[in-house]
């Protein structure tokens, strides 16, 4: 038969680095067979600023400025492991109020980050309305952050031994207004997408990854929990005041785009629960502990990993005395999550590759560092 002698040739498609749906400067080279993706080669590094090298030239207190700029959608969550690492080296006690403030802003930041995911993911799936809803609610959180930290994205708020400023006087009123607003916002968001038939058809069974593969690639955070692995460092390696707070660690089982989406929506609810408890339990007291004027930790090293909205954000801090850190290694969750992208995309259609990329929620700032 004539047809059987026809040979197919794999074709290459280049996406990015300037592509509206790559969530930053990310380039992937797809090898396709017809409509199906055979292989995907990621190219990163377009946003590499050498954060780890720069950190070696800054004093200990100044490094948080750089870490803000790695995962810029969850800046407060990035500052946390670094100050925790430094506190462990210095043996500094953090006042309880400061711990509560940290958890409060981190969880709000998680909601803001997941809302950003929600909006962008909706847009990736072809729906533009979710973006508007997500940004409406995210804006309210940003207003609260502006009042607390003075910044919208780059907060530089956490200090060794506590936080930079105490909460503003009217923080309770602000928060009591913000919480119901967000709760309603999450319901609105869910109504738009979670049961939307087009959305379901686009996402269920797309970009699947098994739990074993996910662990092998070092996936963490919502992407791992969507495969049914219940790993949440807030619970498994308890830090700060998380042991005193009640929250669930939701998991899903299929590990596809829909599960990764739905899991994040559920996480927003849990974060809101934590925020509420912080509002109730917030103790009085200082917001900054007793800290030496000059930060000069003794020789030593420590690795601290915390639960960032995207997974485990780890800081490996080495000190050999002196005013400057000897080595700051940043374990960025998106960097590790991105390694599994090829596994998720293989066998999917080209039309879905944007969606799959969106579903793992990368921030190129922390991939490239």
């Amino acid at each position: 038969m004539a047809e059987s002698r026809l040979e197919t040739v794999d074709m290459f498609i280049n996406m990015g680095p300037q592509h509206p749906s790559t969530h930053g400067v990310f380039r992937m080279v797809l090898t396709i067979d017809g409509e199906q993706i055979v292989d995907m080669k990621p190219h990163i590094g377009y946003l590499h600023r050498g954060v780890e090298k720069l950190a070696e030239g800054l004093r200990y207190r100044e490094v948080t400025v750089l870490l803000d700029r790695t995962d810029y959608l969850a800046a407060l969550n990035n500052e946390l492991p670094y100050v925790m690492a430094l506190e462990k080296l210095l043996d500094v006690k953090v006042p309880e109020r400061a711990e509560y403030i940290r958890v409060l802003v981190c969880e709000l930041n998680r909601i803001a980050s997941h809302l950003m995911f929600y909006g962008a993911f909706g847009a990736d799936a072809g729906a533009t309305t979710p973006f508007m809803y997500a940004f409406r609610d995210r804006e309210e959180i940003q207003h609260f952050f502006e009042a607390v930290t003075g910044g919208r994205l780059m907060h530089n708020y956490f200090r060794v031994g506590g936080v930079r400023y105490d909460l503003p006087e009217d923080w309770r009123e602000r928060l009591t207004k913000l919480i119901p607003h967000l709760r309603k916002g999450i319901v609105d968001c869910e109504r738009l997408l979670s049961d939307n038939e087009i959305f379901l058809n686009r996402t269920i069974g797309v970009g699947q990854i098994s739990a074993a593969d996910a662990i092998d690639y070092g996936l963490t955070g919502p992407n791992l929990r969507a495969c049914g692995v219940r790993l949440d460092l807030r619970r498994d390696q308890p830090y700060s005041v998380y042991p005193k707070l009640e929250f669930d660690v939701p998991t899903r089982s299929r590990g596809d785009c829909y599960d990764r989406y739905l899991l994040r929506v559920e996480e927003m609810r849990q974060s809101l629960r934590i925020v509420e408890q912080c509002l109730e339990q917030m103790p009085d007291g200082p917001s900054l502990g007793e800290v030496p004027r000059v930060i000069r930790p003794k020789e030593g090293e420590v690795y601290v990993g915390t639960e960032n909205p995207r997974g485990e954000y780890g800081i490996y801090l080495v000190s050999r005395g002196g005013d400057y850190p000897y080595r700051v290694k940043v374990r960025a969750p998106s960097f590790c999550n991105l390694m599994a992208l090829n596994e998720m995309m293989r066998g999917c259609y080209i039309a879905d590759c944007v969606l799959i990329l969106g579903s793992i929620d990368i921030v190129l700032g922390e991939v490239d560092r």
Partner: protein
Amino acid sequence: MTEEHSAHSVHTAPKKEPGPSLFPEMERLVAEVLSGIEVTSEQVVDEHAIIIDRKDLLAVCRRLKDNQRLSFDLLRCVSVVDYPNESVFQAVYHLYSIGLKHRMAVKTGIPYDDAIVDSVTSVWAGADWHEREAAELLGVEFRGHPNLRPLLLPDDFEGHPLRKSFKVPELDQARFRRGRE
């Protein structure tokens, strides 16, 4: 790889007075699982750390992962640190067990004049980019890595920026302006 290097025993942990281990349970278990391999324990602030010779790296990692009572299935991070005074790099592997919820670190020294170490990608696929990054930024070679191309830097970049010998003029000026080193 030469056998007779002694640089693997570079000590970077806080020089604590020898005393009871912070994690005796873990230390005992690890020593049991790694019997037959030369292991030095190290005191790190909040986890058990061991220093091994680089020739044992793959065997150690396999055993730590496959043993039921340790089951370190998640490789959290691979960091390489440059110690120019000792002319050695130190690779640090931070491990975590999802099921058993415990952690530890494995360290191994890589001498300057033979900067090569086995890749652990065959144990944890997630080591891939961490090792590529270290190869590029510090100039350490990972033997057995499937694809050790540059990852982050531009193709025409020369040098290994995370080495201490790589100077960034702006950083030195900033330090100088502050008037202290």
